[in-house]
């Protein structure tokens, strides 16, 4: 296990070991992949509430007046249009329109922002911001001191009500508020990566183990590893950075143009506009297999006898009981078409489909009981 020596650890590494989690490297961190088993954990989140250690992800605090700084140019999100205490999903792009990272922006003040980024890209993203951001009063990487736990599942609101009061039920999808928990005033946002009703809790690292234990002491809550996090997000058709999207793919190719604000200037816009005009040469495709056999990363996508691309994410879907996946195809393939996914002697019959694969997620439910 020498390869684990150089890995970063979250404040919860000993808690995971006590729970006899399977630990493995992810994005430079030693992370829990599973506790009781991926399928059991997956199903628990769809029906109850699951707790995820997401302390590996990065957070930046930025103080920047939009009229005096170029912060708006560094992300595809429409920052001006964001109400206070709201969150938006978007991208940081390079000049070619390639995705440096996908991220969440929190508007914590009229000129104050928190940007939440992927673990493996935190340093890269921070350097990019440092290099390009002008006119800001503050740019701080708080990833070392700020931890994050995700509580996801239809019972998440009830669980949190017991800890922070009924105010939590007033949070709408993609908004956040401040709640007092363990003597700290913390940000809790109604966001997540599972498709279920859920929350992300930002707590100083030194209080993370206490928060973890407190949440796990609720019998409705179980710890969930990155294995189930991956199957949960894939059932929703959410992209995973480094696997489905990267610096060589654009939001248009990834089918994520919705998260680009075309009304403003941003790095990469001219390349994206050109791509929009010329048409993309490859596009993200979602597919569902006709059996439990699951497509895997790099399997070839074959359509009408022609090799048209490769699978980027593929897995067994615990909710649907069949294989599902996503990948890029170099031609337009309508939904409902038959394709095959192949590697060596393996041939999986599949049909193209629209995301999400799993359609009963509770994430956007309006009124919370």
């Amino acid at each position, binding site marked *: 296990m020498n390869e684990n020596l150089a890995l970063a650890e979250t404040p919860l590494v000993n808690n995971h070991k006590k729970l006899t989690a399977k630990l493995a490297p992810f994005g430079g961190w030693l992370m829990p992949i*599973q506790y009781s*088993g*991926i399928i059991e954990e997956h199903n628990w989140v769809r029906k109850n509430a699951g707790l995820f250690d997401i302390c590996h992800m990065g957070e930046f605090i930025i103080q920047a007046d939009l009229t005096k700084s170029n912060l708006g140019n560094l992300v595809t999100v429409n920052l001006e249009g964001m109400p206070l205490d709201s969150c938006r999903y978007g991208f940081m792009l390079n000049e070619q329109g390639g995705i440096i990272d996908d991220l969440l922006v929190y508007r914590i003040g009229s000129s104050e922002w928190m940007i939440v980024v992927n673990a493996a890209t935190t340093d890269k993203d921070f350097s990019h911001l440092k290099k390009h951001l002008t006119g800001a009063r503050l740019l701080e990487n708080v990833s070392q001191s700020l931890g994050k736990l995700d509580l996801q599942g239809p019972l998440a609101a009830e669980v949190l009500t017991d800890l922070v009061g009924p105010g939590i039920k007033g949070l709408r999808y993609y908004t956040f508020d401040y709640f007092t928990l363990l003597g700290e005033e913390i940000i809790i946002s109604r966001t997540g990566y599972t498709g279920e009703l859920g929350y992300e809790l930002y707590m100083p690292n030194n209080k993370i183990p206490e928060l973890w234990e407190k949440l796990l002491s609720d019998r409705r809550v179980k710890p969930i590893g990155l294995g189930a996090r991956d199957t949960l997000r894939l059932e929703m058709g959410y992209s995973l950075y480094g696997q489905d999207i990267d610096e060589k793919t654009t939001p248009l190719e990834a089918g994520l143009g919705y998260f680009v604000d075309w009304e403003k200037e941003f790095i990469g816009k001219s390349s994206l506009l050109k791509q929009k005009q010329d048409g993309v040469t490859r596009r993200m495709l979602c597919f569902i297999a006709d*059996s*439990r056999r*699951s497509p895997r990363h790099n399997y070839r996508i074959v359509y009408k006898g022609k090799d048209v691309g490769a699978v980027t994410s593929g897995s067994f879907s615990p909710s649907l009981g069949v*294989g599902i996946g996503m990948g890029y195809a170099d031609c337009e393939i309508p939904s409902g078409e038959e394709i095959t996914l192949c590697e060596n002697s393996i041939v999986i019959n599949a049909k193209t489909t629209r995301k999400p694969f799993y359609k009963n997620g509770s994430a956007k439910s309006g009124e919370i009981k």
Partner: protein
Amino acid sequence: MTVPDNLLYTKDHEWAKLDGDKATIGITDFAQHSLGDITFIDLPKPGAQVKQSAWCATVESVKAASDVYAPLSGEVLKANAELTAHPELVNKSAYEAGWFAVIKIADLEEKKTLMNPVQYKEYIQGLSK
């Protein structure tokens, strides 16, 4: 990890239960544990010839697909059809309900290359250190 006394084992974590010139084969408790939830199994068809240490089945877990090698050479007499709909039987019962196939052994001499339970126990203890 359970290692029954009446089986023989390979270093790739397959087991064989010998009964005259026949053998029932499968993967060990250690194997199912390291694979995690098994979601699909591709078994050899009855009538197929399998060769010792060569591919005989594919096991898919949520995370990955892995090859399974035949512990002995021979002709496949029967495959466990239950596993098509219920691959999780291998997680629940690797040595009983989760058997893969029954083969007619081509060369009994090959069993000398397999580990006995004591050797296999030592072998997996060494792996988990």
